[in-house]
């Protein structure tokens, strides 16, 4: 099957692409276009022209990973095109087809998968205090170092229920609720996507000379990708 036909299988494609006339208003308001080489007008034009060679280039490039998903393009397009939504479709297939590891920014999906899916499935949150370490988040400043160091007492002071049973802020999510999340991930294709990210990341790490048989090797790959070294 052609790549553009594969993209059209995702129902979001229909909502995202509506005869773009290349006016460029999406680019004029796009935060990513302002601070990088990203251009949503060009992106949507490549896709609507159904040129599979160029679509494959997109799926293997940094380009599709530059969007910040603010969806400002949705508000302003006079024809209801949504480049930000098309980005979701392109990123989906870049991962499913294994193209994402061909670009530096694409490889970062390994970081995002490891952190977010682990937090979601093991704790029931996208973010937990323990995952925001001051070492990897210097921008959080001294106030976060103070909170991080004293989190049990501090969150208690704030009226939170950190890692405890019952309702409230940052409560412990019960095992039966986590199991429901895991069941949903299995039924709806999230497990399949995770396996693809793991599989292709392992292969790329191996190609780049990391010892993928050891946990340390993949951890080093994680850190080098996270910090933009590879």
């Amino acid at each position, binding site marked *: 099957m052609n790549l553009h036909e594969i993209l059209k299988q995702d129902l979001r494609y229909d909502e995202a692409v509506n005869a773009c006339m290349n006016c460029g208003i999406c680019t004029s308001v796009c935060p990513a276009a302002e601070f990088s080489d990203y251009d949503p007008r060009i992106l949507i034009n490549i896709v609507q022209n159904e040129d599979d060679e160029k679509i494959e280039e997109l799926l293997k490039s940094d380009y599709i990973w530059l969007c910040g998903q603010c969806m400002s393009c949705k508000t302003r397009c006079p024809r209801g095109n949504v480049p930000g939504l098309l980005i979701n479709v392109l990123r989906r297939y870049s991962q499913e087809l294994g193209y994402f590891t061909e670009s530096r920014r694409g490889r970062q999906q390994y970081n995002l998968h490891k952190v977010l899916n682990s937090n979601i499935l093991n704790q029931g949150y996208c973010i937990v205090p323990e995952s925001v370490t001051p070492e990897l988040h210097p*921008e*959080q400043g001294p106030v976060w170092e103070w909170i991080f160091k004293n989190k049990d007492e501090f969150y208690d002071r704030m009226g939170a229920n950190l890692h405890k049973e019952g309702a409230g802020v940052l409560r412990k999510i019960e095992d039966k609720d986590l199991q429901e999340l895991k069941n949903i991930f299995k039924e709806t294709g999230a497990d399949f996507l995770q396996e693809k990210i793991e599989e292709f990341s392992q292969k790329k790490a191996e190609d780049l000379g990391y010892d993928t048989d050891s946990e340390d090797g993949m951890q080093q790959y994680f850190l080098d*990708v996270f910090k933009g070294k590879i």
Partner: protein
Amino acid sequence: MNTLYKVSKDYHKEIAENNFYYARSCIRQNFFPGSEVTFLKILRDNLGKTIYDDPHHTTCTGIGYHSDVVPYDTIQTVVARHFALMTAQGITNFVASCVTSFGMYIEITETWKHYPQQLEKIREFLKKATGREFEIPKNIAHTSDIIYNNRMMIAGQMKYPLVNVKTGEKLKIVDHIGCHYAKMFPEKGEGGAEFTQVLQGMIKAWGGQTVDYPERRHCCGFGFRQYLVQANRGYSVSNSKKKFESMQPYEPEAILTNCPGCAMFLDRWQYVMFEMQGVKYGKDQSFIPVFTYEELAGLVLGYDPWDLGLQMHQIDVRPFLDKIGIKYDNDKMYKTKTGKTIGSYTPKQCK
């Protein structure tokens, strides 16, 4: 008819009055726990509303979805589970604490309207995965909508209006609206995407003045993967810098936000910009304190600043408290519930 009036009138949304199911925010629970605690307290104690806080609610996975590691079918089914939890309580009004979640709840219910077969598919996924069934909420609101809708009742109980107690002048407060509040579905945001009223309405009702600065609508720069991955954070700080430079000529005395990430980034990136380049964007080389709408509501209602969690800000809020005449105990910033001191840090001074 002027444009502002016309747009505001076109985008006046329906906001439920009472009996809510509360959906918490991942980012706010981590960085603004006091705001979530205060939201419930204001609703129950000041406004006399009923709201259900469910221990079985989980993340909506929205950050994972917009980082492209959670598929669309998956987040739809997780959201369907949230609606099932609401349905099980006999509630029909859903209120989300997070703007990313709010955007997802709207996007998903709109998808189901346009693609009924997708709704049936998700019902089957949910039933198979959890045994649960659900009704779509009659009303979906963001927590800032609820505070906005009750702003005049809060004004009626106000102890500290947004007025400089020394000069008598209305405080100049700029707002920043989270992108996913109204940019995807303008008709779902009070005032739409161009002239959003949800925060300006609060500022005006509580005695302050607002400024429609040119980049008011620009993203704070969170960008999901553009912040979460360390190598990409230049995107995030650059976009916040653009906003600060746009608001700087108007000399705002505070920034009010309705989005979890925005409130954190507009606070933290001021610290980073100062550390990197020695710049500040407030009047007379000061920092600009950043507030959530619950924090601002709590302050005008007379809540203790440290119960609201204002000690979690990197930018010192005390000069703002001084302006509106709020008394505070400096030592209490660093104390536990039982009065024990838990270390200290030095917030960035506003002057």
